[in-house]
């Protein structure tokens, strides 16, 4: 607290009244009680307060506390951030993608590991070309 704030005199009182008006609730918190006492004990200060009250009333005649448009809040909220999709979805997608890659790798790799087709397919052809031999034995 500065020295200026510690003591209330006519000049300091008038300066604060000029700045904050007649309602001591608008005054600096640490000055309110002292200002009220000063005004109560000093006729000149009381007259200044009465004048300031009249000016405050002039200002208050322009007070516009009408409610805001009913759709303004809705318009504002429409632009509010939305929660992101749950992390589970992203994990599930990643797992699905990994499965697909795994499937491709296994499919391709499995093909590479399978035995090469036999060059001599005589066993296969013989199975169909010699039915008569069995008939003769019978």
């Amino acid at each position, binding site marked *: 607290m500065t020295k200026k704030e510690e003591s209330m005199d006519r000049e300091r009182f008038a*300066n604060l009244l000029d*700045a904050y008006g007649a309602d001591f609730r*608008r005054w600096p918190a640490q000055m309110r009680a002292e200002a009220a006492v000063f005004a109560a004990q000093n006729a000149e200060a009381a007259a200044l307060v009465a004048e300031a009250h009249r000016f405050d009333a*002039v200002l208050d*005649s*322009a007070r516009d506390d009408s409610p805001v448009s009913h759709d*303004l*809040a809705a318009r504002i909220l429409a632009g509010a*951030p939305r929660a992101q999709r749950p992390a589970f979805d992203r994990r599930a997608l990643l797992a699905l993608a990994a499965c697909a890659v795994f499937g491709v790798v296994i499919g391709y790799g499995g093909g590479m590991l399978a035995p090469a087709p036999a060059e001599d397919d005589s066993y296969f052809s013989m199975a169909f070309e010699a039915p008569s031999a069995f008939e003769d034995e019978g």
Partner: protein
Amino acid sequence: MIDPDADLVRSAGAGDQRAAEALVRRHLPKMVGVARRMLSDSAEAEDVAQEVFLRVWREAPRWKPGQAKFETWMHRVALNLCYDRLRRRREKTDPDAGIAVADTRPLASDEWLARQRAAKVHMALAALPERQRAAIALVHFDEMSNIAAAEILEISVEALESLLARGRRALKAALADVAQDLMGGAEGGS
């Protein structure tokens, strides 16, 4: 420094709609209010408030509590948007553009007088330098503490008091007739 909005901002940034709604409930009227005092135009004030929240949604996911409270930051954004609009207005030729003017439709005499007074006060406020107007908007109309208002305007409390005093003195001079009118009493109506 404890920021009462920190949790809400974090949650809203992560997509929590309830947190976003709570932020709007808590701060929308204040943002509209300060923009109304600065611009004297309700529709434009709502545009400013909407723009403030667009920036809130953009910043919320990466908001880190720092030197200023979230509400202080919001007020600074709102005031800067108002300053921009006022600057654009000044560039136009009509000095009264966007300033509320009393309705000329026939009204009950009290209501007509009240509107006339309000229009005069709005015009006098609009004629003040921006920083003086902002100081009066925050401290008188929004009833903010001197410390909070000084923080928003990024000045010392002493500088805030100087802005307030100069602004109020200028308004007093400009509105002497309105004060007389009010003192004359409602029964006279002139």
